[in-house]
C-alpha cells in the first residue's frame, strides 16, 4: 500500500455505513478496494471468509493467526470493520462473537472474481468503428499537459512566472475553484493567487498521490454540486480498472457520471475527442488510480518512452547536488524551475540549466511554509541526475544531514492532539488499558508511576473502558 492509496483509505473510512453498502453493489468498486486499499493480512482474512456459508466464531478466527501476530490481526480487523466489510456479532451471553463478511461486499467480490453477473461495472468498450483510435502516446501527452498546467498554475503564480513558455494554459474555472476550495492555493494581497502550505505538499508528492488528493477534494464538494458521492466514487474505482488505449462507451453512465466526465477531462484523467463524443478514453492518470505502479512518471512500458519535450514530471534525473550545497538542474521546464525555487536559492539560468544553492534561509523558508525536509530530500533523490545515481546514496550525506538539521531548528515543538487518561482504580486496570492502547497503536505517552497515559484516539478506548467498568461492577 502506497502513500497515495492510504489517503484514499482515510477518506473511505470516514464514510457512513449506507454509503459503503451502496458502494459495495459495484463489483469494480469492491475489487478496487480489495486490490489496493486493504493491507495484505486483511486481504487474507477476506479471502478466507469469502466462500464461507456461516459466520466464523472468534476462537476459530484466532486459530488462523500466530499468537505473536495479535497486534497485526487486530489492526487488520479494525480496518475491515471501519469499512464495514466485516461485522462482528455477539453470539451468546458473554464472550463469543462471530465475524461475517458484509453480504453485499461478498457477493460483488465473488462476481468480480468469477466474472459472473451482468453488472457492466467494468465499463463497456465502445464498438469498433472506422474512426481513428487515439494512441497511448497521445493520451499520455494529453494527460501530462493537463496535469502540468494544474501544477504550474499553483506553483507559477507563487514564484512569479506569468504566462511564459506556453506552459501556463488556462486550467478552467472549475479546477481553479476546486484548488481554492481545497486550500491548495489562496488569495494573495493584490488579487493574485498564491500557493499554500497544503499546496506545497501537494506539488512535491508523486503524481499518483497528487491525483488522489485532488480527487478527494473533488469528492468533498460533489454534494454541493448536486451529485451523489456514491456515484462519483464508483465511477472513479471503475476508471481504475479500465484499460489504457481502449475507448469506452458513455451510454451506460449515469447523469452524474456524465457530468463528472467533463471535470475529469479538465484534470487530464479522461480524454474525449470532442465535448459530446459518445466515447471516452481513460488516460494513464486514471488507469493507475487503483494500482501501485506510478502514474506518468514511471514510463516503464517500452512502447511509450516518448521523449518529454516540455520536461515536467515525466523527465527523470536532472538534478546534481554537490557537497558544497550547490545545485545544478538540467532543465528548461518552468514547472521544475518553479518547484526548485520553492526551496533553493536559484542564481543563474542558462538555456538548458539552472544553478543555485541550498541555503539555510531557503530551507527554513520552505519549512515555514510547510514543506518537510523529507519531502525536499525525496524530491531531490527521485530526480537525481544519472551521474549522481552512480554513488549510493544519491545525495551527499552532508547535504541531507544539514537539510534535516535546518528543519529541526524551526521545529521546536512536537504536538499531538488527543486525550489524557488517568485515575485508574487499580494498577492492574491501568496496565491492561496501557497494553490495549499499545496494541491499537494509539499510545503516545505514559507515566507508570502516576498511572496515566495519553492516546491520540479515544473511541475504542472508551468501549474498552466501559467493558472494564462493567466487569468490575459484576
Amino acid at each position: 500500500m502506497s502513500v497515495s492509496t492510504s489517503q484514499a483509505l482515510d477518506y473511505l473510512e470516514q464514510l457512513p455505513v449506507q454509503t459503503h453498502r451502496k458502494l459495495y453493489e459495484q463489483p469494480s468498486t469492491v475489487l478496487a478496494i480489495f486490490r489496493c486499499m486493504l493491507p495484505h493480512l486483511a486481504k487474507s482474512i477476506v479471502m478466507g471468509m469469502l466462500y464461507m456459508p456461516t459466520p466464523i466464531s472468534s476462537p476459530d478466527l484466532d486459530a488462523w493467526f500466530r499468537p505473536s501476530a495479535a497486534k497485526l490481526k487486530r489492526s487488520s480487523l479494525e480496518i475491515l470493520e471501519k469499512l464495514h466489510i466485516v461485522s462482528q456479532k455477539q453470539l451468546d451471553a458473554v464472550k463469543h462473537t462471530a465475524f461475517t463478511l458484509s453480504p453485499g461486499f461478498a457477493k460483488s467480490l465473488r462476481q468480480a472474481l468469477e466474472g459472473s453477473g451482468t453488472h457492466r461495472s467494468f465499463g463497456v468498450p465502445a464498438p469498433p468503428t472506422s474512426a481513428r483510435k487515439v494512441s497511448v502516446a497521445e493520451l499520455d501527452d494529453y494527460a501530462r499537459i493537463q496535469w502540468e498546467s494544474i501544477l504550474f498554475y499553483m506553483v507559477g503564480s507563487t514564484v512569479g512566472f506569468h504566462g511564459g513558455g506556453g506552459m501556463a494554459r488556462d486550467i478552467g474555472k472549475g479546477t481553479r475553484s476546486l484548488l481554492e476550495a481545497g486550500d491548495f492555493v489562496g488569495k494573495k494581497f493584490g488579487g493574485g493567487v498564491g500557493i499554500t502550505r497544503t499546496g506545497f505538499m501537494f506539488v512535491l508528492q508523486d503524481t499518483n498521490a497528487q491525483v488522489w488528493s485532488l480527487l478527494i477534494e473533488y469528492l468533498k464538494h460533489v454534494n454541493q454540486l448536486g451529485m451523489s458521492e456514491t456515484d462519483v466514487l464508483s465511477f472513479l474505482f471503475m476508471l481504475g480498472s479500465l484499460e489504457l488505449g481502449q475507448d469506452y462507451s458513455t451510454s451506460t453512465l449515469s447523469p452524474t457520471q456524465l457530468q463528472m466526465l467533463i471535470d475529469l477531462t479538465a484534470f487530464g484523467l479522461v480524454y474525449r475527442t470532442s465535448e459530446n463524443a459518445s466515447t471516452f478514453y481513460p488516460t494513464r492518470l486514471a488507469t493507475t488510480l487503483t494500482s501501485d505502479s506510478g502514474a506518468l512518471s514511471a514510463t516503464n512500458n517500452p512502447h511509450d518512452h516518448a521523449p518529454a519535450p516540455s520536461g515536467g514530471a515525466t523527465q527523470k534525473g536532472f538534478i546534481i547536488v554537490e557537497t558544497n550545497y550547490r545545485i545544478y538542474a538540467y532543465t528548461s521546464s518552468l514547472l521544475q524551475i518553479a518547484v526548485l525555487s520553492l526551496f533553493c536559492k536559484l542564481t543563474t539560468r542558462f538555456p538548458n540549466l539552472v544553478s543555485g544553492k541550498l541555503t539555510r534561509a531557503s530551507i527554513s523558508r520552505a519549512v515555514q511554509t510547510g514543506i518537510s525536509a523529507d519531502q525536499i530530500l525525496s524530491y531531490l533523490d527521485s530526480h537525481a541526475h544519472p551521474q549522481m545515481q552512480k554513488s549510493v546514496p544519491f545525495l551527499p550525506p552532508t547535504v541531507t544531514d544539514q537539510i534535516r538539521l535546518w528543519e529541526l531548528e524551526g521545529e521546536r515543538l512536537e504536538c499531538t492532539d488527543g486525550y489524557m487518561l488517568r485515575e485508574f482504580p487499580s494498577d492492574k486496570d491501568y496496565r491492561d488499558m496501557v497494553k490495549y492502547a499499545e496494541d491499537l497503536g494509539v499510545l503516545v505517552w505514559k507515566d507508570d508511576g502516576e498511572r496515566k497515559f495519553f492516546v491520540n484516539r479515544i473511541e475504542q478506548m472508551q468501549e474498552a473502558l466501559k467493558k472494564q467498568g462493567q466487569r468490575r461492577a459484576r
Partner: protein
Amino acid sequence: MVKAVRGTLVKCDASIKAMLVDIDSKNNNDFIIEELDEEHMLVKETKVNALKNRLQQMMKDRLKDPTIDEDSGKE
C-alpha cells in the same frame, strides 16, 4: 472512575519547556493544563497555536540569529 482529559501533548526540549512555562505563568496559566515530565506537557487544544506564536516571538527577542548577518554579508 477513570477520567479522560482532552488536550494536546507537547513534546520539546527542557530548555524550550522552561520558556513555555514562563509564558504560561505570565498569562494567568491560560495555556498549560499540566506539566508531565522533563520533555512533555499537556496544553489546551485551542491554545496551541497561540502558544507557538508566543514562543517564536520570545525566541526572536532573546536569541540572536548568527546566520542573518552571515547570509546578508555574503550576498
